[in-house]
């Protein structure tokens, strides 16, 4: 998705422009801009890539340094929404304000003030209720595989007027509205950016997976035979409503989901329990608001679950002699992962032993090469927690680290 933005913007850059990013980035939000700098240099256009640092103790982005790097030549400010190594979540509103007050004039968009603000949400979106209007970002990119969903499917939000002003990044079928010899008209949004054959299977599976995850976040899932009949109808009814909302989210679309006989029967039963919840489905605007509400509620629950697990892990791991944690100690400031090292042991040995004990741990630089380089680390071990993990599993993971530390 970063490449999509980079490719679509590459012809807009002017000599002397700059891009401001950070040392917290995953390589996928540094390498495209590094590459763009080289691509443009070959065309005789010199742009600068400015990289803001972070506090080595807390992992917090040095926003003052970032602000000092942004000026009237800054076309783009881009930052991670949550570091996939330090976990740290920068203050996106503040960074957005800095970007938008840079004084840069976008060459194709007179009405736009300041630098574009692109957020890499790969680590943020899976565990946070993200509202692009509140953040006021111009782009938000994320990957669904970080949500336990299929590989190769990603999302990109862009402000409509910004996307309209940008070049397509791929050319071909679907992205055109009319083709004549010597004259091609590009299609409206979003089709302008949908050239080529879509990953239909991956997208369909992702859609189903999102519904499942939102239902999980709302507490609508249950084990058959373990709950009473009215509770089953209530939970299944809420699943059905969530499924309809997730599949017809936009106000200008009518409900497209065809109910099966079994679903119709459930629908009737659920209507007696919760008529208000079904009422919202008939009005396009209410449906849109209800979709927003269930997604926010589910993602807030998921975030709080992650925070609870992460805080417990931080508190316990930090008591183990020799363990060094990276990033903020307050789980509310970070996403649901913890990178750490154990004194006197190489990261690959620690990860090998954790994996052997049944604790899935990743080691290395986690594609956060710049931050590891800044901290002079050749690698760390990372534990990640998500909606499907339990406190019991966190305790087992911490106990495994403790056992390894004691046996050194």
């Amino acid at each position: 998705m970063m490449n999509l933005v980079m490719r679509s913007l590459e012809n807009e850059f002017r000599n002397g422009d700059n891009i401001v990013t950070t040392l917290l980035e995953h390589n996928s939000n540094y390498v495209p801009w590094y590459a763009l700098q080289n691509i443009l240099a070959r065309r005789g256009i010199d742009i600068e890539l400015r990289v803001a640092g972070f506090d080595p103790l807390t992992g917090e982005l040095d926003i003052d340094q970032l602000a000092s790097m942004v000026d009237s030549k800054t076309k783009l400010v881009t930052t991670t929404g949550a570091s996939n190594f330090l976990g740290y979540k920068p203050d996106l509103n503040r960074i957005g304000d800095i970007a938008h007050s840079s004084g840069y004039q976008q060459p194709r968009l007179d009405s736009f003030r300041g630098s574009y603000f692109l957020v890499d949400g790969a680590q943020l979106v899976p565990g946070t209720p993200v509202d692009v209007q509140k953040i006021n970002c111009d782009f938000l990119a994320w990957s669904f595989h970080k949500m336990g969903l299929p590989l190769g499917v990603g999302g990109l939000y862009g402000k409509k007027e910004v996307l309209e002003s940008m070049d397509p990044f791929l050319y071909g079928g679907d992205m055109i509205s009319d083709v004549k010899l010597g004259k091609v008209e590009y299609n409206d949004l979003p089709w302008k950016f949908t050239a080529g054959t879509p990953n239909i299977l991956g997208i369909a599976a992702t859609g189903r997976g999102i519904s499942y995850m939102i239902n999980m976040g709302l507490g609508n899932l249950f084990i058959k035979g373990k709950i009473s009949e009215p509770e089953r109808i209530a939970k299944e009814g809420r699943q059905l409503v969530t499924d309809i909302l997730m599949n017809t989210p936009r106000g200008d679309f009518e409900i497209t989901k065809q109910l099966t006989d079994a679903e119709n029967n459930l629908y009737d039963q659920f209507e007696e329990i919760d008529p208000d919840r079904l009422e919202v489905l008939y009005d396009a605007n209410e449906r849109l608001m209800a979709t927003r509400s269930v997604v926010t509620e589910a993602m807030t629950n998921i975030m709080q679950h992650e925070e609870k697990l992460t805080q417990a892990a931080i508190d316990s791991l930090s008591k183990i002699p020799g363990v060094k944690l990276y990033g903020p100690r307050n789980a509310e400031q970070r996403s649901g992962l913890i990178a750490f090292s154990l004194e006197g042991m190489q990261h690959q040995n620690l990860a090998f032993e954790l994996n052997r004990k049944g604790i899935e741990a990743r080691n290395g630089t986690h594609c956060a090469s710049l931050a590891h380089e800044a901290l002079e680390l050749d690698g760390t071990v990372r534990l990640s927690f998500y909606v499907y993990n339990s406190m019991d599993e966190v305790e087992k993971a911490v106990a495994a680290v403790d056992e390894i530390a004691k046996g050194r």
Partner: protein
Amino acid sequence: MKDHKEELLRKFNQKQCADPLDKIGKTLVSTFGINENKPTEDPNMELGLGRATNFLNRVCDTFEDPKHMIDIAPYAYVSLGTDLFNQTMEVVLTRAKDNPEDQAVLDEILSATVLVAPELR
């Protein structure tokens, strides 16, 4: 002190092997040197050198361009453990010999195996 990376580079000096080894040769030796029965002990670098040499002999003989296989090896070895890594490598090497046209994507078998839940691998 013996420089294990330099030793690997002397043995595997063709460009396709030397380039990745220059970057991760030391990591490859220290990772393959992990004692699978006591992984928390310091890696046995001589053991690691021997295993790395064996691994490189096989992938450099089989693959036209073994770069991606070498790059992925330390990560896959740590995640899968010695036995499963070796089993997966047998599958990869057999496929690479029987279907040379598939070689460019076979490193993905290691990544994909890591992604599968341990009990299903």
